[in-house]
């Protein structure tokens, strides 16, 4: 193995991939060849580094210099100035919005200062297509550890002790889930990775899979060992092409090295993983709907109980975990439950990956300890609201979460506190909305999503999500009346309490919370009123948004 004096890391995450980073990589390789730096500088295609708004990003090690919005035309200058002469290219450096100055190396950026990268520790650092790089960063060590030194029950105990809770949104204790599955009667058992990420505003699982696919495979194998399963499925959105490619490639190389398949590491433990694709149905993110879909049916949720750990995929005991949950596992095994518990809050230990989007300076992927406040995330990491606008509201946990206003920005973010505040931590999506937007228009967008994604199996969700949309659309169109708000509240109460699955049960959250905080703005639209934000045009008539999907 040859040592290199510098590494050029080019982000290949989907958000950066918009800008054809392959051209960047090619340009770097060409320039390095031309300058004969090729043997000493290595170009690495990595997963997401986080700063999606600034993409494509390039990080040059060992200094950790962060270049943003790099185009192939800039490559010559970076090579000749930085790599040859050691002078960073000032005009491409990351400009910290809060500090109003450029930042030489990325750890100086406020964007990174409050972050704790556990789940994302390899993202943007290693070449995700290289199992060697994963192994070099300690990958598959935890699998080796559990297979050679731990009893299955000990693994379950370690996960239980860590206090890890499901990162898909519900926050169910992962150790408990594993214990139920381990105890359940019935063979075979399955491990399913829920990568059907569909919550609007959420793209963490996509970027984790793109940036560190082996972590998921390792975690699934650990889970299989702990629960007695020998087969795993990763159910992933059909739209996530790069993740799918990365996963398939990772499975292939792991099998080649005997880290998956028969007799892993010579321990006699067998575990296989397959990738299965969704076909466009948000509801398949609900675990039992996912099973239905994986089995080849309509992705409609099942009645619970029985729970998946008793009767899941094909009626067998099944552990189903979210990508981010699984991504924490190898670290918990490696560093121990106590270490994990030292992060985050007592009720929700560990870190959480959030995705920032909407009206915020730094959109992208971040990982922070549980319990951080929304204000810190928005203003310190996220760089605040762009364009001199004011913060109006944030939607936490994706569209199925609720909304919070300025007053709630100092709440510590964890499952229980957020739920108490009437919203949800959920998938970790943070959609920031500034004061140029109309609450009715935004709420309509939420409602439209649920109308479109309701599976249609249970009556209240099937009919109720459509009604939510129609009523809000009517208000936006100037056809609203106080009665409509009563109806929205009635519907919200019904939807919150009665549907078969969480899709319908959470559909009213954004409506209930926006109604709670912005009722006068809804009311302003009534009759011949106007939209205070000037977004909903044509009062009295149908707006553009009224058209069907």
């Amino acid at each position, binding site marked *: 193995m040859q040592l290199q004096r510098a590494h050029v890391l080019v982000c290949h995450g989907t958000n950066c991939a918009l800008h054809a980073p392959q051209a960047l990589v090619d340009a770097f390789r060409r320039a390095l060849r031309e300058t004969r730096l090729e043997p000493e500088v290595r170009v690495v295609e990595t997963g997401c580094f986080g700063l999606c708004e600034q993409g494509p990003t390039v990080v040059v090690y060992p200094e950790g210099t962060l270049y943003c919005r790099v185009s192939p035309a800039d490559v010559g200058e970076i090579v000749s100035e930085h790599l040859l002469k050691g002078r960073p290219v000032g005009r491409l450096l990351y400009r910290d919005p809060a500090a109003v100055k450029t930042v030489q190396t990325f750890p100086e950026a406020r964007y990174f200062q409050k972050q704790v990268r556990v789940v994302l520790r390899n993202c943007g650092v290693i070449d995700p297509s290289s199992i060697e790089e994963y192994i070099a960063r300690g990958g598959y060590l935890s699998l080796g550890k559990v297979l050679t030194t731990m009893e299955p029950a000990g693994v379950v105990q370690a996960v239980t002790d860590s206090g890890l809770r499901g990162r898909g949104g519900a926050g169910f204790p992962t150790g408990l889930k594993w214990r139920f599955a381990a105890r359940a009667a019935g063979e075979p058992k399955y491990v399913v990775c829920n990568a059907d990420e569909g919550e609007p505003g959420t793209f963490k699982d996509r970027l984790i899979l793109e940036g560190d696919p082996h972590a998921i495979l390792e975690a699934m194998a650990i889970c299989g060992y702990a629960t007695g399963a020998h087969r795993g499925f990763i159910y992933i959105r059909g739209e996530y092409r790069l993740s799918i490619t990365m996963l398939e490639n990772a499975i292939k190389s792991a099998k080649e090295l005997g880290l998956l398949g028969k007799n892993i590491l010579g321990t006699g433990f067998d575990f296989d993983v397959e990738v299965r694709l969704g076909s466009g149905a948000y509801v398949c993110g609900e675990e039992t709907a996912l099973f239905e879909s994986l089995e080849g049916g309509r992705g409609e949720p099942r009645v619970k109980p029985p729970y998946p750990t008793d009767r899941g995929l094909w009626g067998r005991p099944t552990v189903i975990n979210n990508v981010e949950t699984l991504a924490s596992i190898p670290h918990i095994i490696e560093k121990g439950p106590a270490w994990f518990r030292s992060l985050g809050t007592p009720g929700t230990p560990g870190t959480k990956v959030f995705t920032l989007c909407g009206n915020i300076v730094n959109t992208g992927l971040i990982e922070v300890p549980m319990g951080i406040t929304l204000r810190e995330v928005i203003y310190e990491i996220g760089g605040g609201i762009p364009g001199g606008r004011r913060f109006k509201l944030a939607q936490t946990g994706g569209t199925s979460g609720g909304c919070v206003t300025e007053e709630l920005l100092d709440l510590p973010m964890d499952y229980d506190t957020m739920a108490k505040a009437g919203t949800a931590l959920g998938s970790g999506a943070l959609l920031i909305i500034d004061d140029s937007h109309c609450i009715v228009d935004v709420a309509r967008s939420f409602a439209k999503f649920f109308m*479109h994604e309701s*599976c*249609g199996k249970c009556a209240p969700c099937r009919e109720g999500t459509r009604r939510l949309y129609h009523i809000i659309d009517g208000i936006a169109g100037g056809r609203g009346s106080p009665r409509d708000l009563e*109806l929205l509240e009635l519907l919200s109460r019904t939807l919150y309490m*009665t549907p078969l699955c969480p899709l319908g049960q959470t559909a009213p959250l954004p409506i209930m919370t926006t109604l709670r905080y912005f009722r006068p703005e809804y009311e302003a639209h009534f009759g011949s009123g106007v939209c205070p934000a000037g977004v909903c045009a044509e009062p009295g008539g149908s707006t553009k948004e009224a058209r069907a999907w």
Partner: protein
Amino acid sequence: MVTLTIDGQKVTVPGGTTVLEAARRAGVAIPVLCHHPDQEVKAVCRVCVVEVAGSRTFQASCAHPVAEGMVVRTNTPALREARRTIVELMLATHPDDCLRCERNLRCELQSLAEKLGVREIHFDRLVREVPGDRSSPSLFRDPSKCIVCRRCVYTCSQVQGVGILHPVHRGYETYVAPGWGRGLMEIACTLCGQCVHACPVGAIGEQDQTAEVWAALADPKKHVVVQTAPATRVALGEEVGLPSGTIVTGKMVAALRRLGFDRVFDTDFTADLTIMEEGHELLHRLKNGGVLPMFTSCSPGWIKYMEHTYPEYLPHLSTCKSPQQMFGALAKTYYAEQAGINPADIYVVSIMPCTAKKFEAQRPEMNSSGYRDVDVVLTTRELGRMIREAGIQFDRLPDSPYDDPLGISTGAAVIFGATGGVMEAALRTAYEVVTGRPLPKIDFEPVRGLQGIKEAEVDLDGTCLKVAVGHGLSNAQQIMERVKSGEAGWHFIEIMCCPGGCIGGGGQPIPTNTEVRIQRSKGIYQVDRELPLRKSHENPAVDQIYREFLAEPLGHRSHELLHTHYTPRARYGPPGGKS
């Protein structure tokens, strides 16, 4: 056993019981809609939600299992509001046309709205506009009334194994229909009508032909004769409010006379005749190495199922027409001759427990008399409707006997109405014909009852006859797969399309469920027990018809009038075409 508290009362029930069931034991009937006593839990309508202490959301009581110490409340303001809102949501997309709906006063949605005291629909009316289907002669579908409870889906797929009704599309656009917008007549629908029993509303029903019968009755030139299927006499009473399984044979005959039928005959007569023909066919096949096992061919849903699904096995079907069709053929030949009436003037109406019989009567080959053998088929429900419209006080009617000669029948024919009945009737006759000895015991218990597949062996003087009986097409499918595998070794198999046999037919009164089927079945065997003649070959009218008209079983005339052939059918035909 598990003890829980429901509305403040302690209830002890076996573990695994649902909250719904436990509440019923506590005297609380939680309202339900998608729930059906014979079906798996769906929990999709959410009308039966209850509060379970400790649970964030309400729970569907039909699906939620009891647990020790559970505290349940079934009647809080929030629950009432939620239930009512859910029903309002359904009603707001449901056509408000009770007054002209097939299921008016027999509609579960209507009675639910009444029970919950829904007095206002808070939501704008948004009726789903989906095309209806009147392609088949037996059934109509009106998906605009569908509440997507999926009970029909379950029945079609799980009970009947036919699988032509599915939820299509997604979300609020979901409704239940055959694929690609096809009509029932364009696909492998057996027209059994079991979906009608499953449907809580008027989204599926029989094609109503009462108007045609009223018109025929009013036409003085027409000589209108009616035949009544065995299973109708233990079910019709339900249409006029009598308990399930009440035997109303004499009152039914009287009512038919009141309606103006010129002759009231009995399909039981041709059921006896079927035993003669089919029995001899079986003996013939046994003797001459014919195709075995031989299947019964009385059930038109079963026949259509075979034509679609197992066309290569059509030679296994008995060539006998069903009793309904034998009757029609004889009414327009033998009876016409005897009564001296021009067969062109004879109009045959059947009262059948069956929707598929409407299709059967229209099959092009069913005209061996030179005319349509049967002109109109009415279901038991349609006859009930005619009786109600005519204002006949059914329970006050004096019992009236059938007319001669096509109204003379035996207990063997009556039991055609229940699963296993054809088999039992055939065995009663076959035994005596083959052995020449009277049967030691007339009741063949092994072929009776609601078990899905029944098997028996009968010793016919050294020949061991192996028989099987199946009802419900998913059981038929299992039998077919065993026949296919060649392991079974059966000689004779009775298949009835509908669960329970014809007493559970798709044209029977609503509701029809297991409980009701058991009562009707009891009625059937009681009629049999109480009849003086209980073997088909002892029927003097049958004896007479062979003497005067047919000559002998399987004879030339029988062949021409009483036997038929079958047509292989595709599972999906082209759009607009027939399958």
